[in-house]
């Protein structure tokens, strides 16, 4: 707990997401247990943890798709969940939620319209988002003909359509080959540098090295929060993986 307290000072920047004592239960199972977290503006924040640790549940609470049983979630200063907040962030779900019968462009058109984009502006944004993920040449193809990596990129493009100030990405690089993973990370870092706040989840340890700060999550609790360097130093470890095992409660070793 002292580790988390020490990190509270890191949020000198205005908070984008502020979670206090958040608890979420499904039936008798407690998936998130009094979790407190603050993500500052312009940060690239990674939630690192094994599958089933509560990462996706946490993401759903931050975005307002789900509601906490206890505690409070604030996003960009607004108490969540709130309908109008859905236009303030771009979201990419863990599974590629795309319409396979439609072309990439039709998928982009559909989601752009849901975000209230229309006319010339909509066409511009579709072209721009497709260019970022390198799908311009494949816009007219039905998604059913896409490879796994192309679907992932299209999902990312959808998250970027309305130029959100915050990106919430659930496992953006899962199932993607190393080359594509690197190019996606280059994009993420570029957006971070241009001022976009990014919250993402991952269970790939070496990806965490790219984040400004990492939250280690295990069994519904944040076991440590800090920059990759800080966490390694604190654990006296060489790698994030070692730090994760040492700081995350060595109950599995």
């Amino acid at each position: 707990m002292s580790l988390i307290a020490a990190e509270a000072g890191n949020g000198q920047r205005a908070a984008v997401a502020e979670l206090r004592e958040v608890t979420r239960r499904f039936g008798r199972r407690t998936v998130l247990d009094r979790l407190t977290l603050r993500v500052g503006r312009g940060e690239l924040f990674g939630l690192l943890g094994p599958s089933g640790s509560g990462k996706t549940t946490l993401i759903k609470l931050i975005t307002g798709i789900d509601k906490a049983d206890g505690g409070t979630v604030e996003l960009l200063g607004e108490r969540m969940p709130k309908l109008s907040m859905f236009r303030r962030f771009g979201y990419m779900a863990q599974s590629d939620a795309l319409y396979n019968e439609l072309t990439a462009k039709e998928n982009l058109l559909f989601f752009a319209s849901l975000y209230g984009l229309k006319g010339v502006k909509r066409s511009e944004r579709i072209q721009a988002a497709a260019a970022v993920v390198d799908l311009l040449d494949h816009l007219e193809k039905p998604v059913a003909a896409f490879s796994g990596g192309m679907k992932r990129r299209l999902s990312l493009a959808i998250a970027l359509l309305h130029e959100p100030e915050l990106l919430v990405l659930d496992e953006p690089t899962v199932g993607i080959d190393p080359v594509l993973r690197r190019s996606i990370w280059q994009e993420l870092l570029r957006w971070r540098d241009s001022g976009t706040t990014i919250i993402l989840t991952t269970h790939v340890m070496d990806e965490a090295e790219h984040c400004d700060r990492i939250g280690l999550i295990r069994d519904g609790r944040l076991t440590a929060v800090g920059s990759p360097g800080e966490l390694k130093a604190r654990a006296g470890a060489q790698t994030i993986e070692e730090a994760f095992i040492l700081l995350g409660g060595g109950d599995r070793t």
Partner: protein
Amino acid sequence: MRTRALAVRIIRQFIRDKRTLALLFAAPLLVLTLVHFVFNGQTVKPHIGTVQVPAPLTERLEQAGADVRSFDTAEQAEAEMRKGKLDAIVSVRGGVPSILLEGSDPSVSKAALLAIQQTVQSVAGGAGVQPAVSYMYGKESLTSFDSFGPVLIGFFSFFFVFLLAGVAFLRERTTGTLERLLATPIRRTELVAGYLSGFGLFALLQAALIAWFAVDVLGLYMEGSIWLVLLVNLLLTMTALTLGTLLSSFAGNEFQIIQFIPVVIVPQFFFSGLFNLDAMEPWLQNVSYVMPLYYGADALRGIMIRGEGLGDIWADVLVLLGFSAAFALLNVLALKKQRPI
């Protein structure tokens, strides 16, 4: 060994899937029970009105098992027939008995006609008195298909739209696109309205095609307005659409949507008026009032066989609108399960 492993696996899966198991055993019993009540109920009494006929004839009709009511004028009797209370009217004109049949259901008409003819013959002492027969609706050549047809049009529209909408909405949920959709600023009401308009277009096209094919190609008897038929069919499919999407929230996969057929669709078929509801126990007849298809079929029959206008079927139209609105509202509420706001 391997066969056994496979058999054991299938048995385990069955035991795990309680709903399928319940359906496997309970659904046939439910459907059989329905069939039992529909076909093994009370005998149907022809409802016959008499206009100033000799008392002996009335008595004989009653003895023949008919439900007989006497009227002073033909107008009064015909008014009752228009309300659907009489199957036949017997009057005597110039010494010759004349029979007016309601005519929308050939089997009912035949039963009434038979009872009357036998009675008239016996009263007249077997002499060659041929009663003059006329029809209020339909005609003598009205076939069983003409009588079922309107109900079948409604039934098939309902059935296919229900399945289609249920599976489509289920897929939206299981492929994750519903969750993705709900991570955008869309309102739950907008989502339901979108589904209604998108599917509504195809439901309307389907209704138009079915009606056109039945009337123009198959020669189904058609007395009323085709536009009213389309209106009623559209409302019926809207009910099917909203009910299908609503029930899909309670299904985990396509198979479980199919399982709704014996529970939701088959009972409606039995209560749609395809089988004579008068033959059922009175308490059971009331069940038809909660079946959307009953109202749709009633309106379609009215329009197509009796040439009824909007003024005659407005109650059915309102009930169908009410069903659609109620199911749509429940859909909006059920979506709360996916997103709390």
